[in-house]
């Protein structure tokens, strides 16, 4: 009996909590049942021959999900932002999880991606081309407006190129550094970009144009306009959802392919032992820059999507805390574990964006306390991380290699012995 409780107790609690949350976010009852069944199946049948079919079922569920929900706001709105965050988490996973380069300035790539959308997909540069504007493959709707208006796909390509270059740029000064020192340099880089974004409204580009709109924000931003479909509307969020889902699938695909490739092996080798990797013919500089650039590119894609979706590019979005937020998704899910990071990203984004502000907001007031849960959201967030580090430091769905590293006390190169001696 006690064995049964130990085994199924957590699952039962999980189901109960899930049902409560689904009720609160107005999840369709049928979809609630489906997700609980799928979740339990994934939990029980992971790593069996059925895991592939579970994956297919979850994918189908994710595709049809928005059809069961109000297309204008609420659940789909939250889901879109969650998916965009997952794209960033998976991008950061390449840098931190695969190559082991701790990056605390990931928000910079979000900023670059968002500004690509702001610069090339809004009326921000109103004076360009004598006020006529520049238009690249855009619908009739915006082709009359001033400023640079490029098709979303063009902006995404530009964002990928620009953020990848920025990623390589931030990589350059860190090449001679290891471990914590890399983290400090990337942190500074993130801060620099954030400051430039805030003060960019005083940086003139000539002709009365400025680099950014500072805290006012660039708004409105063009809606996504894909070939063969109508321009996206702010009242119908389903196409946005499917676009975000497609981005997640692409970044998942790239993650899996890269992990099991020449480059992926080189990244892991680099993480384990730089000296040995170099002696085996892995070029350190190229390999590290490749990790930075690839990881950054996904931050850029997600940034461009979010800029268009949120309809603003506001300098206040690019805070240091956002870097930590994305990093926490990666750590919570399990460094280097692709599914883990996906789940970690969904869970954290849900907690910060939906659970605390919409569901649990009034809990303290309900018990007679005079504050609002959103006021302490970062405390909750930190508390979660601490609990996680104590109970399950390897993350929700750990990667095999990391689990060994944590439990056998290896990896991390030459410093490991010293740490052990001190403890």
């Amino acid at each position, binding site marked *: 009996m006690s064995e049964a409780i130990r085994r199924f107790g957590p699952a039962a609690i999980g189901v109960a909590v899930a049902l409560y949350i689904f009720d609160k976010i107005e999840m369709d009852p049928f979809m609630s049942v489906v997700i609980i069944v799928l979740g339990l199946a994934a939990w029980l049948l992971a790593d069996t021959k059925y895991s592939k079919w579970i994956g297919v079922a979850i994918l189908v569920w994710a595709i049809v999900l928005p059809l069961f929900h109000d297309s204008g706001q609420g659940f789909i709105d939250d889901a879109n932002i969650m998916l965009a965050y997952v794209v960033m988490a998976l991008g950061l996973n390449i840098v931190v999880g695969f190559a082991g380069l701790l990056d605390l300035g990931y928000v910079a790539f979000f900023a670059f991606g968002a500004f690509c959308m702001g610069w090339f997909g809004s009326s921000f540069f109103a004076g360009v081309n004598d006020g006529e504007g520049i238009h*690249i493959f855009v619908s009739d709707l915006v082709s009359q407006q001033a400023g640079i208006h490029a098709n979303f796909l063009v902006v995404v390509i530009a964002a990928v190129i620009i953020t990848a270059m920025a990623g390589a740029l931030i990589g350059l000064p860190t090449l001679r550094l290891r471990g914590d020192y890399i983290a400090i340099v990337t942190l500074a880089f993130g801060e620099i970009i954030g400051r430039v974004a805030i003060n960019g409204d005083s940086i003139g580009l000539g002709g009365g144009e400025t680099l950014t709109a500072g805290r006012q924000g660039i708004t409105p931003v063009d809606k996504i306009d894909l070939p063969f479909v109508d321009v996206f509307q702010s009242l119908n969020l389903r196409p946005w959802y499917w676009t975000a889902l497609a981005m997640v699938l692409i970044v998942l*695909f790239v993650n899996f392919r890269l992990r099991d490739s*020449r480059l992926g*092996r080189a990244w892991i080798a680099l993480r384990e032992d730089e000296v040995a990797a*170099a*002696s*085996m*013919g*892995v070029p350190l500089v190229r390999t590290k820059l490749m990790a930075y650039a690839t990881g950054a590119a996904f931050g850029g894609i997600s940034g461009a999507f979010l800029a268009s979706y949120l309809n603003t590019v506001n300098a206040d979005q690019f805070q240091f805390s956002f870097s930590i937020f994305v990093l926490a998704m990666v750590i919570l899910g399990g460094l280097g574990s692709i599914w883990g990071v996906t789940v970690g990203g969904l869970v954290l984004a849900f907690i910060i964006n939906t659970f605390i502000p919409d569901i649990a907001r009034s809990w303290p007031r309900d018990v007679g306390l005079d504050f609002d849960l959103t006021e302490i959201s970062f405390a909750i967030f930190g508390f979660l991380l601490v609990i996680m580090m104590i109970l399950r430091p390897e993350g929700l769905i750990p990667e095999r290699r990391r689990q*060994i590293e944590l439990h056998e006390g290896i990896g991390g190169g030459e410093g490991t012995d010293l740490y052990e001696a001190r403890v």
Partner: protein
Amino acid sequence: MSALTVAERSRFGLLAVAIIVGSIFAVMVLPIWLAAMVTLALIVLVGVPYWQQLHRSRNSRRVFVAAEAADTGEPVLKVENASKVFGGLVAVDGVDFEIPQASIVSIIGPNGAGKTTFFNMLTGLYRPTTGRLRYYGIDITDERPDVITSYGIARTFQNIRLFATMSALENVMVGQHARMNASLFGSILRTPSVRHEEQAVMEKAGEMLEYVGLKRETFGQLAINLSYGDQRRVEVARALASDPKLLLLDEPTAGMNPQESARFTEFVHKLRDEMKISILLIEHDMKVVMGVSERVTVLDHGQKIAEGDPREVRKDARVIEAYLGKRESQEQHA
């Protein structure tokens, strides 16, 4: 490093002309922003693959240049007056040294004699303070470690440095990194050539592991879970996987019992005869040194104090002094 060949340079020129003409044409017929896009697209679509091709051929050219130089009878490695100074400490002091083709050479010396520093210099981990390194006559003094590996010099480490959380097979696959061509986009799209390469690399890794005597059922085990002897074997396999012409082994028999050492001696001979590679060992075990090497170099305080046939070196007065101390001092103690 050798510059581009004439054919490559002319192809490169043609390419540049094509891009320039294309973009001028684009500027004439298209609005400026579209022309800029076209130019960018031209550079990306045509230039990047070409640049990659160039990089690839440069990698294989290293092997080619080395193979050509090998025919001239140059020694595999020639070290001219190499020194390494750390602050005030002279770790290696003006060593001249040579490894003839297809030979087995040992470096011995008391602790702190500078043997491992010397090794690290040969593999590019340290840059020599003075002196030159020539590999088949090619100057490799200023090359990075990975470039040196791609030329054909591979090594093992004194304290085993396998990638602990990778399987034995994956470790050996990393060893072939310099011989692979898969690019970032190739890997993402998994093009047929990448797929074939991956398959070939995996098969070769298996062959190498079998060659060094690892059992097939341990191939998938993580390096950290392997026995000490197997870890040593995997390290040798990983080094061999890069098709070296010169293999550097840093105290390969450390921690082995006499039977294992004897078997290792046989293995080194087999390596030399079957794979036609030269081997340089750092070794403490005199039995192994005498059994395996054709020439011995003795280092003490960073200087070469003796060189030659193992039996002669053993009788050399300076070598005995380095290992056992001076006669006078012995008398004083007695």
